[in-house]
């Protein structure tokens, strides 16, 4: 008869240190993985550039035909807006709500639920790591677009710092709302219609389709009370616009507020959603 040893418990690393190590490990893994798919990433970014270039060409043509500006926006401003748009759009790519459906249906959540860490942390860290690859790949694209469209872009150092903070704020903000929306997948397998509605609203009210000043006044008013513009229009404007320092701070504050609201919604939804997980497919 074999002798079974007594179990010896392990001493653990502190919570903050291990969390930082976790984020660093996942981000490093994401960078490694995405560098393996650099060509695919580049093609993806090229495809993504088509959308703002179309917007830019349309609005520049309208500006030229309207005596050089559209509601005070010059072609140089529009070029700067849509070139910065390409980076903000890439920063806005997060673990989207529809992925939750796949995660649940294929049983991939099983792996995540067995770990003593919220899956949200993994999603934030993984996509954050991916962003570093995206930024490196974006630089030559931005240079190419600038040579063609001549943007009017002269940011101050404060604006550059605010922009850096704002694009990460936008990333976290959009993550929180997309993850919260994804919780619907625990209740319905037909979440796609709701996700599409959300995306359409976001397209119109975020500044993605057109800079918000070109939208009707009532649309601009509504968008002030919704999270969308803080993930799109605001970060672009921090670099392209003429915000005062106070406005920059207020905008960053609004991002923090919306991130916290999104996090609150996610945590509430997660607490109830996870009880409904049936761990099918694994």
């Amino acid at each position, binding site marked *: 008869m*074999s002798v079974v040893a007594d*179990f010896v418990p392990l001493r653990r690393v502190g919570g903050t240190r291990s969390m930082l190590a*976790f984020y660093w*490990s996942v981000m490093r893994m994401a960078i490694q993985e995405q560098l393996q798919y650099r060509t695919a990433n580049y093609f993806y970014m090229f495809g993504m550039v088509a959308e703002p270039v179309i917007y830019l060409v349309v609005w520049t043509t309208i500006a030229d035909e309207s005596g050089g500006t559209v509601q005070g926006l010059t072609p140089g401003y529009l070029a700067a807006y849509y070139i910065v748009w390409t980076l903000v759009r890439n920063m806005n790519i997060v673990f989207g709500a529809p992925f939750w459906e796949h995660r649940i249906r294929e*049983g991939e959540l099983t792996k995540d639920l067995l770990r003593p860490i919220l899956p949200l942390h993994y999603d934030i860290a993984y996509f954050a790591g991916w962003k570093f690859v995206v930024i490196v790949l974006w630089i030559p694209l931005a240079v190419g677009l600038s040579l063609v469209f001549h943007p009017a872009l002269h940011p101050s150092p404060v604006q550059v710092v605010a922009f850096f903070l704002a694009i990460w704020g936008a990333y976290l903000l959009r993550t929180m709302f997309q993850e919260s929306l994804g919780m619907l997948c625990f209740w319905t397998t037909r979440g796609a219609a709701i996700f599409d509605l959300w995306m359409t609203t976001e397209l119109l009210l975020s500044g993605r389709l057109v800079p918000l000043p070109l939208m009707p006044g009532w649309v601009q008013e509504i968008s002030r009370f919704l999270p969308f513009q803080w993930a799109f229009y605001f970060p672009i404007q921090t670099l392209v616009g003429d915000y005062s320092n106070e406005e920059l701070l207020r905008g960053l504050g609004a991002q923090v507020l919306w991130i916290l609201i999104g996090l609150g919604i996610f945590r509430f939804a997660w607490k109830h959603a996870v009880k409904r997980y049936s761990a099918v497919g694994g």
Partner: protein
Amino acid sequence: MAVHVDGLRKVFEVPEREPGLWASVKSLVRRKMREVRAVDGITFDIDRGEIVGFLGPNGAGKTTTLKMLSGLLHSSGGEARVLGFVPSKREKEFLRQITLVMGNRNQLQWDLPALDSFGLNRAIYRLRREDFVPFRDELIELLDIGDLVRKPVRNLSLGERMKVEIVGALLHRPQVLFLDEPTIGLDVTMQKRIRSFVAEYNRRHGATVLLTSHYMADVQALCRRVIVIHHGQILYDGPLTGLADQFAAHKTIGVALEDGTVDLTRYGEVIHRDGDWITLRVPKTETSEIASRLLAEQSVLDLTIEEPPIEDVIELVFAQERREPEVEVVA
């Protein structure tokens, strides 16, 4: 006590509909649901350091039970405690002390070498480098996967992947291992390797193991005790050797005769004949009497009485009918 289960139940409500357009239209106003009792009031305890085989046919409720015990599923009733924790609460301290290995699931990062995933586990489970590195290397050595952990996981064969999966699942030194078909699809050599690894881990670290497997060799090699579940209910909980006593209606008598051509059909069913050695299947209750008659009436050189092979016994157990029908409800 490592695992305590008392009257544990899991009921799934599944929609049911006849095929065809008319049935689709009808289901819009009157949705028919069926309650499936995947686990139906099971009770058992497992001591620390014990290795228990959890047996049952497909759909018996084994995996559902393991998922409830590892905190993946919320039960519909009854009580479960693992290391004193209520699994469904999914407390971090609980999750740090258990692992669930599913033979058909990949838990490692697909595009990267396993070593990267191992490093990630170190951060997730808050392991100190001085604990993690030697233990990781010990596990790598035990399973002889030194040359595999540097290859991207996607380039590994099924058996190789399973070995690195198991190492990944044990790096945080769990006290309780839920192993769901850990050897599924592996060749015999690989199965043996994993079996001896589990036994060694249990011996070295005092871990408790609850193992499901369709390979009786896994169960025979590792488990003294088995729990048999069928239709969500426990049919047997006891020593592996006692299974035959409870479920087999027959025993086998092996007999070597001076004259191997003698007809023995009046003693029992002849199931095998190999030269002078004849194997008979006889009713369990009549085994002693038939053996006595054989000794008295034939020129017997040798005689053995054996329980039937465990695979045959399990087959008998799995053929049992459900005690109660499933409930149908309309919502």
